[in-house]
């Protein structure tokens, strides 16, 4: 656990192309330990791709990723990922396992917990997101919001030091958003570093210590939310924010 205990995350000049589509064009992002950074930007600007690159699900073609100032590109990516929880935009629950098994799997196999303990721990996590009663259901029989909450519980169960949320609240109703918000506040207090991709400006404003606005694969503007939302410096961001309802 040594090197990741604090969890300051830095991406430096990240580049990535899919074929001829240059999706990330030199992204810099710095997230201090225990803070929450939100990433906003138009659809297709590369937000999800950036998260994938930062936990090395896709290797960057150029640039570096640092945890506590140390490059992780040479390390074992599996250890890196055990310390970074991720909630996917499409949830990606395991359809062949029940809800509770989805959450318990990594506990049992990676944390080597005995089955009972992993199960109990998973139920605790499910309770946090209000889904203890669906523990034995299959993911395909859940509503959208329920699936998203299971994905959150699954990531949190591993007690990561850094969490990535990709549109973490897109399927959640206002009550649940508030719940997730409270959860995240708790996590931040506990020292968790978080990167949140969202298109809900209210959410971004409420959760973030810093906000980064991406467009076309580059960071257009970054700063504390008060500044970005009230005094955007670029026209691009101004235009983007003018559309918020």
């Amino acid at each position: 656990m040594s090197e990741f205990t604090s969890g300051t995350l830095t991406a430096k000049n990240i580049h990535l192309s899919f074929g001829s589509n240059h999706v990330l064009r030199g992204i810099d992002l710095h997230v201090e330990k225990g803070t929450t950074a939100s990433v906003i930007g138009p659809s297709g600007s590369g937000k999800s791709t950036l998260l994938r690159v930062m936990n090395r699900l896709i290797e960057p073609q150029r640039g570096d990723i640092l945890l506590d100032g140390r490059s992780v590109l040479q390390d074992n990516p599996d250890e890196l990922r055990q310390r970074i929880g991720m909630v996917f935009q499409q949830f990606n629950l395991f359809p062949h396992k029940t809800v509770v098994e989805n959450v318990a799997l990594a506990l049992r196999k990676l944390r080597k917990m005995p089955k009972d303990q992993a199960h109990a721990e998973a139920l605790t996590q499910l309770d946090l997101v209000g889904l203890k009663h669906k523990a034995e259901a299959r993911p395909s029989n859940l509503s959208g919001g329920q699936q998203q909450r299971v994905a959150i519980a699954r990531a949190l169960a591993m007690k990561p030091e850094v969490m990535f949320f990709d549109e973490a609240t897109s399927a959640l109703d206002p009550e649940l958003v508030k719940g997730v918000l409270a959860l995240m506040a708790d996590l931040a207090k506990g020292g968790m570093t978080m990167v949140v991709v969202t298109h809900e400006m209210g959410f971004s404003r409420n959760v973030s210590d810093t906000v980064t606005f991406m467009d076309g694969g580059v960071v257009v503007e970054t700063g504390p939310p008060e500044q970005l939302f009230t005094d955007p410096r670029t026209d691009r961001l101004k235009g983007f924010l003018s559309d918020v309802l």
Partner: protein
Amino acid sequence: MDALEQLIKTFFDWEAMGAVVPSMLTVGLPNTLLLAVSSGVLGCILGMVLAVMAISRNPVLRWLSRIYTDVFRGVPAIVTILLIGIGLGPIVRQLTGSTNPFPLGILALTLMAAAYIGEIFRSGIQSVEKGQLEASRALGFGYSASMRLVVIPQGIRRVLPALVNQFISLIKDSSLIYLLGLLSSQREIFRIGNDAAANSGNLSPLIAAAALYLVLTIPLTHLVNFIDNRLRTGRPEKKEPDELAAVVGKGAQA
């Protein structure tokens, strides 16, 4: 109808069947099961290795798997069995002193079955959405653990019926190891029926063998379908085997 009567006598002579059934049950059945089950299990193991090699990022492994599959799938079973029996037979005999053809027969059947089963597994594994591997890796599982715990179980489930196909083929192919030279106590179901048919010129013993095959294969099919449904739905109370159409209400019939 004279021709019909003759036909019935040719295929459904109960006496000829009855004469052959006892040895089919006491000799043929155990031998068929021994051959099919052992080469089925070994074939699945080797097939899984081939499938995993076939989707690996290492081109050498991919090509090894490809070549193996192409060769052992394309060559007629008789040729493979003869090559192994006649080629390896003397070596095995010298090393072990045993002239029992079963080990070599199981080896030959395994090598062939693995080529087919490998392709079945591969198609199942490749049909699993890439998001599944991503999600598992994001949790911190390594590539092989992700495959083992998340991707492969889903992939296998999708191809269970094709796997049953292959196992049934294997039960039938096991009759080919007669090419290795069998004592009469080593014959399997079909061989016993075939010998009896050759001796009498009546085909009823073959029908008896076919019936015994059905007794083996039908419960297998239904057992696998049952397990498949259970895994798919997780709900024992589900009655409708048709998951797919079931979601779309009565409209589906229109």
